[in-house]
């Protein structure tokens, strides 16, 4: 057994951490306060090559392995969770299907510019009646000649109003449930594409989240992202474990940010004549947080390693996402207790971490759905 990161991975983590401390962390407070998407920073990330993290070298990618990728997600979430959600979308779901199935035109006109940070990408899953229940997707794609016509309404779309193109989950046959699902590329400037309500969010601010509407949008055949019709759910399955694992890494990063600030506060804040870090109840909090973060990290990186090795890990990936998120929620909660009344003031970051952590409970699968799945896998169908 070997739990050590390679020398290369250690170097990568350190260099990324320094970059995040320099470029992102100083802007985290303003990104959260204003809720505005920092387009200049996003562009700079493109120039630095971060959006190509998981993509092939031919399209400008780094081809980073799962473990190395997680190091990146952890560091960016530590610096600014709001911005991390935008970056993660661009690196992963926003561009994944283009990278895998994009035609030469799509690759040149959309994927490569997206990797350079010149175009914004996102994915459209959720609808009013479907979220975790993807089989209930109602956005309909019907064949017309060689191409497709797409109609439907998507909700909770990251970068809804800013994206240049969408990867849209739609059914080509509602009677088939999961087996009728497909992913379509929809460019923002196509006739029939519009955006609706913008959501005011509790946390993960800094991206515009809202509705995207498709009204009889005509698409050429190449915009079906896949080798054949009805394979959408299967393709999603190929990346699902990694997405959950990446979500867990975001949770670890956010927990680390909260932990580090709480630690500094506990060392400096004096109450009853001594730093509060000298009190056993405060020490106990750090002992517990640190232990649980360590456990969550081990499970998360173990899953990344299993993905790297091609070992099936669907259940374990759900467990990692769930454990890391629950630990993160605990760490940010303890942070607000360590900060005492100051946690209630916007002047201190404890409240920001607390709000941001809630996002993790829903993104990457609610824990109610994940627990049901894990339990079913363990017990089996009776």
């Amino acid at each position: 057994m070997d739990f050590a990161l390679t020398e290369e991975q250690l170097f990568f983590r350190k260099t990324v951490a320094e970059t995040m401390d320099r470029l992102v962390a100083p802007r985290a407070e303003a990104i959260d306060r204003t809720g505005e998407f920092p387009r200049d920073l996003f562009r700079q990330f493109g120039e630095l090559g971060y959006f190509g993290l998981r993509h092939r070298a031919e399209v400008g990618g780094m081809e980073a392995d799962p473990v190395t990728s997680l190091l990146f997600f952890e560091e960016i979430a530590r610096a600014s969770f709001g911005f991390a959600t935008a970056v993660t979308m661009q690196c992963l779901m926003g561009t994944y299907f283009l990278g895998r199935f994009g035609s030469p035109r799509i690759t040149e006109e959309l994927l490569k510019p997206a990797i350079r940070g010149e175009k914004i990408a996102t994915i459209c899953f959720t609808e009013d009646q479907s979220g975790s229940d993807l089989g209930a997707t109602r956005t309909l794609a019907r064949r017309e000649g060689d191409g497709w016509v797409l109609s439907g309404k998507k909700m909770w779309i990251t970068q809804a109003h800013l994206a240049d193109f969408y990867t849209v989950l739609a059914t080509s046959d509602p009677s088939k449930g999961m087996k009728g699902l497909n992913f379509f590329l929809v460019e923002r400037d196509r006739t029939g594409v519009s955006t609706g309500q913008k959501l005011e969010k509790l946390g993960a601010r800094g991206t515009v989240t809202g509705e995207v509407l498709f009204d009889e949008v005509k698409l050429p055949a190449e915009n079906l992202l896949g080798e054949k019709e009805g394979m959408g759910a299967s393709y999603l399955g190929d990346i699902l474990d990694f997405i959950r694992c990446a979500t867990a890494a975001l949770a670890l990063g956010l927990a680390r940010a909260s932990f580090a600030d709480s630690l500094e506060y506990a060392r400096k804040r004096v109450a009853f004549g001594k730093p509060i870090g000298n009190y056993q109840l405060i020490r106990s909090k750090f002992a517990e947080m640190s232990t649980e973060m360590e456990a969550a990290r081990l499970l998360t990186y173990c899953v990344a390693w299993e993905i790297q090795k091609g070992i099936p890990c669907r259940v374990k990936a759900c467990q990692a996402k769930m454990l890391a998120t629950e630990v993160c929620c605990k760490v940010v909660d303890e942070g607000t207790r360590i900060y005492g009344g100051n946690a209630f003031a916007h002047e201190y970051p404890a409240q920001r971490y607390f709000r941001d952590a809630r996002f993790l409970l829903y993104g990457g699968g609610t824990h109610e759905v994940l627990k049901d799945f894990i339990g079913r896998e363990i017990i089996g169908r009776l």
Partner: protein
Amino acid sequence: MDIAVLVKRVPDPEARVAVSGGTLSVEEKYVLGMFDEIAVEQALRMKAALVGKVWAISAGPPAADEVLRKALAMGADRIARVELRSAAHDPWIRAKALAGAVKKAGAGLVLCGKQSGDEEAGFTGPAVAAFLGFPCVTRVLSLQADAKGGKGRREVEGGTEGFELAWPAVLTAARKLADPRVPPIMGMMRAMKTPVEVWTEKDVGLEGVAPLVQPPAFEAPAGRGKVRMIPGTAEEAARALVKILREESKVL
């Protein structure tokens, strides 16, 4: 002509540092020295004008490789480390090792920070220049360079002064010389795959050179004395403070 940038791995300014029993312990958080990083940036900007390669060179233990890799990720072409077996604490030995390394690399222009982030002695640049027999300009604020030489301005007490010189030379970087770039991911990938050239003391002509300085013993600075708050308006407080400085502390 090649440029050599001398870089040092120093404790992160935010690392926790403790002194106990005469020894220093530093939290495991190290970075490329701030002024050295500026020197790397300046070297990269001059690379085209000088038509040569940029070397990053460090003298120290294997742990120093990480700052060399950072320089490589930023855009340096080659990286080398002198493995110092003994007397790494001695700035004279380090400077001699670095001068030998510059000679081995065949660089005609040497850049480094005006001072390191830990000892802050400002010794390395001038000492390397002396060992190499190169002219040296310290605390450089701005620089225009071509293949033959450069001119610019440097910091002096209370102001700046101009300079002009021909290569070879040693220049030390001040804060305003350049804003270091962030390493791009392609640079990081290159840095992750490129091995560090390791040179022995013999390779750089350091064998048999005795150190001038003994390893230091550390003492923690005295704790801060009692703080006395002076109440009142700003004017009242200022008057009270002057009175205390005159009559009690007798420093005025």
